[in-house]
């Protein structure tokens, strides 16, 4: 390595630094540090004249390293790197000493602050001496987009991206688009039903030439990295083609009967069935898992629309970005939890939605065993807030408003039903508070539980018993129907999705955002975005909004010609690597792979995936993995400088 020639530039930042730090003293100190050939100060180093000083010096003094002592690198590292590049120096030969946030802003003692600033500069100089030039990595971006999940969030993302001019592959594992929303019945604050919202989106999706919809299709693998993913999909057969006229003859002869998951098990369906009662379900489908391939349906089908020989198909596509919108699963109470499963008079909110839906199993009549219940108790927070041993610790966000919405609907149809809501905290946030008021006005009775209510099922009668917090008394409510306001849980296959997409996951199992507050629709993995309830409970509007937001981020990536990656990432010295695989195990981004050459293993970093977190460098038992710009020797130089007493 050439002899380092370092220039040190110390910023006053107006009075921000100079008010607390004696900048002249620091300059003099810097001049005497090893390898330093020039040290200067200026009132605003980031200003145009300040930048010019550095540019000139690089040429005049043949500097090959630059140290800028100023503010946080998050503010101006970029600025000064550009300065280096303009002067013909590799921009990564810059080191910044943060003498503002780390020094002048947090101290008042001028003498001590000056000493600290000197030390910070000394440390930066020591590191600068060890810096190496690094090259930015560039990739061309594939303009296609993959969206996993055909619920409202996924469809919204698809529509927005397609309308913005990008080709979208919309993949849904179920035989039909629409997701959970389609089953929700009437939505709060509108006359629309979930199926209307989903249905109109499906129409738009169908009509949009830029969207390729792949239903009954599962994600198998996603390789590559931001801008260039190779995606493998498995399209499973529905055994029925578009010749199907929905005559329904096949259903009559099908001998297999299973619970209808679309109706949350309220009814049964055959192995050949219509995936949704909505009109957009254009053909019958066969559920490959339960079909016995008896062939009865094939025989009866008048238009020969059924082919039991159909095979799964592997599809490979190439995309630049991925949006995961795989939604949620409703929480399913275990048998006996609040009497669920012990009586058909204990149902979940989702089941109630189906019963209230005009297209549901009872055509919108709320009838249990043929009778309209006279009184209903809604129990809130089922599956949420750790109310029962099986439940999740989080709040499912939408259940309060959603329950009240259902109750208002119910009261519209059956004004005389006596309704009790047994809740813990009524979380009708924002304008939904008005729903709560309206429910009160409709004479819905609210009671607050402290611990999960007990539902006792004895014969025909149901009784909900609990300690009522607002009265401080144990009370019991005899009712004809108990509705459990169940929350949302991560979708069944979230673990698989997470592994394939190499994205993080919180302790509760939902996918993790890059930043909870400011990057809510981005995954930690670049080029992967998250929409809808897959990151946590959301209501329909919020899911749709996040679908658009995810599309916004994806479009932002896809419309770039190239992606550039900072080269401050991990690198592995192959000659030291034993292929032990520890780095692979710890890498949170799946950015390290083991390559086997001549039967020996060694690790390799995929630069596009690496985020430069440094976990591999810290855990590498051989010291083979190093974080560029933060190599062990560079950090050691800093530590030595920090602990060295002059």
């Amino acid at each position: 390595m050439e002899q380092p020639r370092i220039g040190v530039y110390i910023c006053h930042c107006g009075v921000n630094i100079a008010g607390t730090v004696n900048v002249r003293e620091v300059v003099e100190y810097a001049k005497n540090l090893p390898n330093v050939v020039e040290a200067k100060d200026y009132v605003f180093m980031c200003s145009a004249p300040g930048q010019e000083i550095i540019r000139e010096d690089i040429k005049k003094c043949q500097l090959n390293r630059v140290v800028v002592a100023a503010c946080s690198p998050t503010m101006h590292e970029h600025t000064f790197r550009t300065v280096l590049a303009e002067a013909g120096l590799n921009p990564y030969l810059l080191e910044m000493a943060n003498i503002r946030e780390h020094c002048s802003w947090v101290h008042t003692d001028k003498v001590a602050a000056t000493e600290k600033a000197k030390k910070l500069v000394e440390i930066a100089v020591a590191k600068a001496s060890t810096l190496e030039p690094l090259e930015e990595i560039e990739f061309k971006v594939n303009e296609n987009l993959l969206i996993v999940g055909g619920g409202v969030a996924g469809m919204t993302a698809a529509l927005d991206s397609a309308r913005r001019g990008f080709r979208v592959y919309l993949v849904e594992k179920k035989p039909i688009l629409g997701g959970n929303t389609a089953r929700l019945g009437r939505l709060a604050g509108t006359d629309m039903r979930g199926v209307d919202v989903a249905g109109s989106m499906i129409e738009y999706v169908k009509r949009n030439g830029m969207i390729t919809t792949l239903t009954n299709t599962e994600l198998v693998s996603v390789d590559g990295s931001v801008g260039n993913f190779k995606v493998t999909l498995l399209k499973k057969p529905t055994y029925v083609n578009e010749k199907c006229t929905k005559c329904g003859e096949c259903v009559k002869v099908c001998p297999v009967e299973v619970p209808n998951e679309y109706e949350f098990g309220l009814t049964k369906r055959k192995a050949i069935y219509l995936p949704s009662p909505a009109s957009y379900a254009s053909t019958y489908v066969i559920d490959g898992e339960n079909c016995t391939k008896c062939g009865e349906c094939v025989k009866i089908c008048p238009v020969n629309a059924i082919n039991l020989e159909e095979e799964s198909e592997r599809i490979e596509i190439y995309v630049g970005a991925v949006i995961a919108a795989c939604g949620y699963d409703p929480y399913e109470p275990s048998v006996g939890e609040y009497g669920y499963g012990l009586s058909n008079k204990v149902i979940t909110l989702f089941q109630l939605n189906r019963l209230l839906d005009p297209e549901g199993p009872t055509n919108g009549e709320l009838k249990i065993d043929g009778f309209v219940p006279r009184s209903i108790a809604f129990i809130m927070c089922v599956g949420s807030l750790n109310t029962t041993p099986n439940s999740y610790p989080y709040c499912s966000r939408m259940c309060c408003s959603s329950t009240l919405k259902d109750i208002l609907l119910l009261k519209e149809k059956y004004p005389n039903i006596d309704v009790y809501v047994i809740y813990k905290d009524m979380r009708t946030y924002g304008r939904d508070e008005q729903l709560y008021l309206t429910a009160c006005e409709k004479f819905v009775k609210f009671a607050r539980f402290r611990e999960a209510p007990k539902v006792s099922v004895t014969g025909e009668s149901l009784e909900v018993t609990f300690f009522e917090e607002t009265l401080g008394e144990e009370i019991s409510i005899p009712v004809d129907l108990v509705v459990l306001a169940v929350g949302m849980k991560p979708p069944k296959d979230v673990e698989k999705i997470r592994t394939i997409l190499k994205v993080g996951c919180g302790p509760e199992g939902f996918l993790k955002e890059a930043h909870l507050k400011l990057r809510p629709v981005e995954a930690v993995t670049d080029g992967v975005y998250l929409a809808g309830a897959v990151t946590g409970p959301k209501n329909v509007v919020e899911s749709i909004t996040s679908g658009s937001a995810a599309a916004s981020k994806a479009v932002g990536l896809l419309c770039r010609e190239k992606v550039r990656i900072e080269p401050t990432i991990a690198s592995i010295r192959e000659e030291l690597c034993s292929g032990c695989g520890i780095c692979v195990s710890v890498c949170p981004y799946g950015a390290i792979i083991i390559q086997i050459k001549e039967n020996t293993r060694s690790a390799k970093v995929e630069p596009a995936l690496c985020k430069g977190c440094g976990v591999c460098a810290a855990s590498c038992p051989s010291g083979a993995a190093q974080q560029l710009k933060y190599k062990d020797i560079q950090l050691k130089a800093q530590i030595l400088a920090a602990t060295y007493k002059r």
Partner: protein
Amino acid sequence: MEKPKMALYWCASCGGCEEAVVDLAEKILDVINLVDIVFWPVAVDFKIDDVEKLPDGSIVASLINGGVRLSEHEHVVKLLRRKSKIVVAYGACSSWGGIPGLANLYDKEEILKYVYGDAPSVDNPGGVRPREKHVEEVELELPSFLPRLLPLDVVIDVDYYIPGCPPTPEVTWKALEILLSGNLPPKGSVLGASDRALCYECPLNNTKPDKILLKDIKRPHQVIVDPEKCLLTQELICLGPVTRGGCGALCIKAAMPCTGCFGSLDEVIDYGGKAVSYFASILDYYTEEDVERILDRLPDPMGVFYRYTLPASRLRGKIKTTMR
């Protein structure tokens, strides 16, 4: 031409390293043919006086095993340093302290109290302790017990290291070849062993899954080991990834996890620290309870991660514990 002179000496050592030299088997004859052994207390009858008589720097190479525990060791190794061109720390104990070095977890008094008193097998009603002077016919100065065990390079300048507990004959032979070839590597190098971690030569390396994440850890007596599968993935603490290779994965071939006797690689500053760091990285836990459970499985973390390297580690004498 006179054959180059060579000396071998043992300090605080179990004798395994001496045995390892003998384990060269018929090759020992080649060694004898090539060098003139001028000092080897365990095998050849030369006295200290004989060494003292030699001119300074006249011994080409001294292979010293064991850590420096007694004042006598200190005396002799300083003498050998004076008389030798090259001093080689032979084996784990002299390189980093080795297993005897774990005694540094206790102070001198505590060790003596236990060894000469509290240990269950001791019957010492008079409470006799080793003396440092013996006065009967003549006054004798006896070797004193140093406060701590020291790796060789703390006491004298060491040129090369040969790792292992003990170094295998292959390693020893390779190191001797290098020493005798005259084509010497830079000072401080490790002779005879590999530059990569043990995994590199481990026959089980290819049996690893993509990701190794351990939910639990086990000790060898708690499992029936599958000898065809990476031991780490069987939740055994195998220190292969953090340990220098060159031993030929002998322990692994005997279905025992690597305990780290070849020490760390060049890039690693502190063996035990690195070992803990690597091992903790692959533990898959979420809760405090998990951590507690895993820690319960590790009754002796110092003995596991610093088995051979405690005196040479960054911890040095900073960690003290009491006898259990």
